[in-house]
Every structure is written in C-alpha cells, then in structure tokens.
C-alpha cells in the first residue's frame, strides 16, 4: 500500500468502518510510514478531544392536549418537591380551578361550624359581674397582727391595727 491508498482509507479507519480485508495492509503501512502514522495519530487525537465533551442531557417532548411541551429535565427536578408533584398531578387548569373551589368551600364550612359551636356554648359571666371576694375583717386583722409581730418597729402597722380594732369594736 502506498501513501495515496492509505489516505483514501484514512476516513474509513477514523470512522471505524475499515473493512477487515483492508485492515492488514492499512496496519502495515501505518507501521512502516512515519509521516502517515503521525497524520493518522493527530486525527485520532482530534477525534478523542471532540468526544471528550460530556453528553448533553436528553430532553423529551410532552403532549398535553393539543400542545407540545419540551420536557426540561432540570425543571422536572423541581417537581420533586411536594408542591411540584401536586402541580404535575393537577396539570389541567380546569382541575386546578375545581380543586381551589373545593378547598375554599371546605375552609369556609369549617369556619362556619366553628362559629356555630361557639354560639351554642353557655354564655360566660360578664367580667363586671364577677364578684370580687372582699377580704373578711378577721383575716386582715390576723395578717396585720402577724406583720406587727414580725416587725414591731413599724408603727404605721401598729396604728393601722389599732384603727381596725377600733372600727371593728
């Protein structure tokens, strides 16, 4: 094989389509011709560089009614949240609207029941009518006596006790 024939088979070899019949002659020339080997290896290196980029993600197409929508893999990862799953589960606008109405009706009904139950409960006593327990005289007197015993120098306490005793008598 000469260099011209080698060049015609180069595309097949680089594209991995070299026929088994041509392969031995191609390999022999590659081993014997320095210039052709260098050229072939340079091209192989270029292809390796081109293939070294990672594969892009595959996007899909979703058919919703009459619409075709690109199914974005990154957006779909957002659907992994509970709200996202709900949105996927309720794709149609009409269904979402019906779900909103049902939710609003249920919430309103629950509120109404709550108000009704509150009305049915026995009325609480008005604050004004709550009788404030008036301390009875004996208790006050006993407390004053105790305080005076603990601290006899406090004359005001003694006067108050005397006044209380007088009015009680």
């Amino acid at each position: 094989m000469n260099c011209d024939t080698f060049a015609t088979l180069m595309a097949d070899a680089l594209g991995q389509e070299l026929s088994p019949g041509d392969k031995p002659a191609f390999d022999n020339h590659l081993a014997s011709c320095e210039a052709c080997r260098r050229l072939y290896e340079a091209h192989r290196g270029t292809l390796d560089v081109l293939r070294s980029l990672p594969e892009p993600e595959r996007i899909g197409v979703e058919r919703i009614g009459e619409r075709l929508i690109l199914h974005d893999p990154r957006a779909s990862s957002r659907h992994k949240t509970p709200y996202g799953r709900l949105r996927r589960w309720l794709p149609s606008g009409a269904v979402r609207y019906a779900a909103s109405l049902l939710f609003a009706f249920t919430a309103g009904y629950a509120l109404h029941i709550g108000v009704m139950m509150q009305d049915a409960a026995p009325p609480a006593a008005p604050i004004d009518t709550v009788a404030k327990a008036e301390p009875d005289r004996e208790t006050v007197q006993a407390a004053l006596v105790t305080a005076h015993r603990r601290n006899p120098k406090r004359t005001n306490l003694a006067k108050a006790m005397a006044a209380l005793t007088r009015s009680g008598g």
Partner: protein
Amino acid sequence: MESANRASAACFETHAADVYSWAYRVLGRHHDALDVVQDVFVRWVKQCGDTPPTQPRGWLRRVTLNRAIDLCRRRHPGVAAPDDALDGLAYADGGSQDAAVDRSDLRNDISSALDKLTDVQRGVLVAKVYDELSFSQIASELGLAVTTVKTHYVRAVAAVGDRLRPRWA
C-alpha cells in the same frame, strides 16, 4: 393546513431532543440550546410546513448547527461564553472547578473550530462523531456520494485539529 400542522408536530416530537443535543454541544448552555430548538422549529413551520424536506433530520442538523454558530457569534462576540458547567447547572459530577473551566474552554474552542468549517463539513463531522452515523447514512441524509462524505470528514477533522491541537491534543 391541518395535515401540515400535524406533520410539523410529529417532526417536533421526533427530533426535538436531537436538535437540543446538537445545539447544546456547540453552545454549552441549556437556555441557549432551548432558544435554538424554538428558532429551528419556527423556521421549520415557516419553510417546510407545507413541503417537508426528503431528509428532515439532515435539514434539522444543518439548520441547528448554523443557528447555534450564529448565536455564538452574536451573543459572545470575541468573548468566551461561560459554560453551564461553570454555573454548576449541567453536570453535577463532583468535578473540580478547574475541570469545569477546562471543559468550558474546550467547548468554546470546539465551537470556534466548528465555526470555521463549511456547512457540509460541520454537518458531516457532527453526524459522524456525535450521532455515530455511518458514512452511507450521512451520504443518504445529505444527498451526497459516500466518497464525498468521507472527503469532507477527513478535511473537517484536519481543520478542527489545526485549531484544537496547539492547546488540547
């Protein structure tokens, strides 16, 4: 009109993921690639809605790569476009920041190397390297002879290698 719309929708369903993948390989940014998907299919509806091309996949690959290259030129004139990998969006593979920067630089270099190819060379290279089609499949997609496709392939690899080799190979 109805049948044309249905055919366009079927084309979108079948090929949208591939269009995204081709665009992402050039652009390296998720949202830019989605923009290209939208542009390409708008163009499909305008140009091919009534008379679809005989090889829709070949048409889509050529238009997508051209559109992605245009976007590269327009959005980042002379400036390296930051890759999704730098935002931590695309590949959460636990790689270091340095690796992400390298990957972003490599993608920018590959994009600018692809930019220098002719439309046909670019289409052949992407179909062979990334879609792993055979030369005969590519030839039938592009309506070319198999030997012509092989010639374009080797020339494309050589041209890209000239730009990538100083830094990467």
